[in-house]
């Protein structure tokens, strides 16, 4: 009760470590209809690109044993609409940290979108989603190559003075190499993980379930991979790590923090349970008491 759950992330104070993950919480305002947003530490907004995008054809969603696949494909109204409409509207209802999640298909595009976000005073942190294919580099995602990831980080750091979190793709051989490349390129923090690349087939129609064939796998089934990557990267880097992937409960938040996370994003669980984040925040003090945790800051990377 009345426990201090606050953490500091790249100089930004969060009243608690719980942040709905990008793409699983719209532009924040939707959920204001069903809970008080100020219960959240921060909000990561839906992935935004320089120009508006319609996203992929439907079906964009598939079920699987450990969670779900999505191929939403970055449907978004473009960074200008984000900065002019979405963020100011959210700020009226939310006093916590607003995280703009930025995507792109070239370094210049990332930089231009971040420059636009930089001009918006209500954005506290920028989160670079480097899982997008690099159109100029043969279509492999920026986040799968240390050099590409570093280059885009550097380009963005020049375009903004806001703290930049780089959100890494787990679909890589050596997550530590990529994390270190981003750190060296000036990233202020890292977010791990984005979705695993997966696929499901409808055995009745003999077609992929997703119109896009493959999609991003998220949910409880990715949790052990996320914990492992958070642990590996938090040990290898000095900048803070935000844990993400399969978190469903206060216990999961604590496990992520013990692995090395300074804050924790909750993704797919928001789809299953619209009250997921406030429920997790409410559970935290009790779970901390049970585990003898006085202050969340004490357990970051304790394992």
């Amino acid at each position, binding site marked *: 009760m009345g426990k201090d759950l606050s953490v500091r992330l790249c100089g930004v104070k969060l009243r608690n470590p719980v942040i709905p993950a990008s*793409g*699983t*919480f*719209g532009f924040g305002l*939707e*959920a204001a*209809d*069903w809970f008080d947003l100020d219960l959240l530490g921060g909000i990561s907004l*839906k992935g935004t690109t320089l120009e508006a995008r*319609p*996203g992929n054809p*439907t*079906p*964009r*969603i*598939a*079920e*699987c*044993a*450990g*969670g*779900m696949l*999505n191929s*939403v494909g970055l*449907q978004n109204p473009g960074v200008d609409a984000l900065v002019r409409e979405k963020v100011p509207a959210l700020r009226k209802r939310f006093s916590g940290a607003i995280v703009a999640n930025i995507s792109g298909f070239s370094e210049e595009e990332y930089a231009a979108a971040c420059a636009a976000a930089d001009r918006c005073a209500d954005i506290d942190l920028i989160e670079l989603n480097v899982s997008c294919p690099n159109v100029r580099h043969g279509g492999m995602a920026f986040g799968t190559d240390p050099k590409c990831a570093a280059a885009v980080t550097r380009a963005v750091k020049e375009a903004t003075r806001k703290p930049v979190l780089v959100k890494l793709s787990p679909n890589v051989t050596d997550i530590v190499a990529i994390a270190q490349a981003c750190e060296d390129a000036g990233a202020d923090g890292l977010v791990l993980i984005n979705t695993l690349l997966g696929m499901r087939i409808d055995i009745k129609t003999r077609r992929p379930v997703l119109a896009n064939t493959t999609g991003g796998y998220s*949910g*409880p089934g990715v949790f052990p991979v996320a914990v492992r990557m958070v642990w590996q990267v938090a040990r290898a880097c000095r900048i803070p790590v935000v844990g993400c992937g399969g978190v469903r409960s206060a216990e999961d938040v604590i496990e992520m923090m013990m692995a090395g996370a300074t804050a924790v994003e909750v993704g*797919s669980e*928001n*789809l*299953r*349970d*619209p*009250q997921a984040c406030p429920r997790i925040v409410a559970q935290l003090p009790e779970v901390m008491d049970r585990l003898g945790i006085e202050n969340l800051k004490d357990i970051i990377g304790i394992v």
Partner: protein
Amino acid sequence: MKQGWFTICENARLARDTFRMVLEGDCSAVGGSGQFVQVSVPGLYLRRPFSVSDRDGDRLVLVYKCVGQGTAALVAMQPGEKLDLVTGLGQGFHVSAAGKRSLLVGGSVGTAPLLLLARELQAAGKAFDVALGFGDIGLAFYVNEFKALGAQVKVATQDGSLGREGLVTDAIRALDGTYDYYYCCGSKPMMRAVCAALPFDGECSMEERMGCGTGICYGCSIPTRSGMRRVCADGPVFRKEELLWEKI
């Protein structure tokens, strides 16, 4: 929007592969016809969306077709068991849009939400008739329920085993009346055909595979005249003139 536990009161076969489930619980958020609920099926990750087919005090009725894992699990559930529902989702039918006499057009299990709509139209003193299309007589349901509300009801089946042989557009042609508005729910090809066939205004309840059902994941977006819209939060009911059938 409200999350809560509902108790299954009835769960019985209504037609082939089609079941009627009566659930009791806090219905304060349930809303009007065309709105839907998201059912958490034990053992599955994502909730499954179902239209509210009927409502009576703190009871609501779902009519569902067994098409996959989730609906098969629902079939196996017994009265007394509980289900976790999110209620009060989506933008439903616009009863106020009805004119002199409306046409309700249902295809297969898409017929389900039209019963609650019919009750609402009746309560609002608006006249309506009903055209239904089913694969065959074994799949048909609710014909008598609509008749009991005093509506003219015409049915078409693909094999002619009930009503006319043909599609729901043939059932529409069999109706004797003049209509100025329609409400439609069914498969995409069926709704496309209805929108093409009927010269007057109307609205359709769209269906897409859903992630959240609450408007936060953008998994269910369709192109409309006013850009990409979420079926779950901006719909499922859309006015005819909004729908870009050529792109859906």
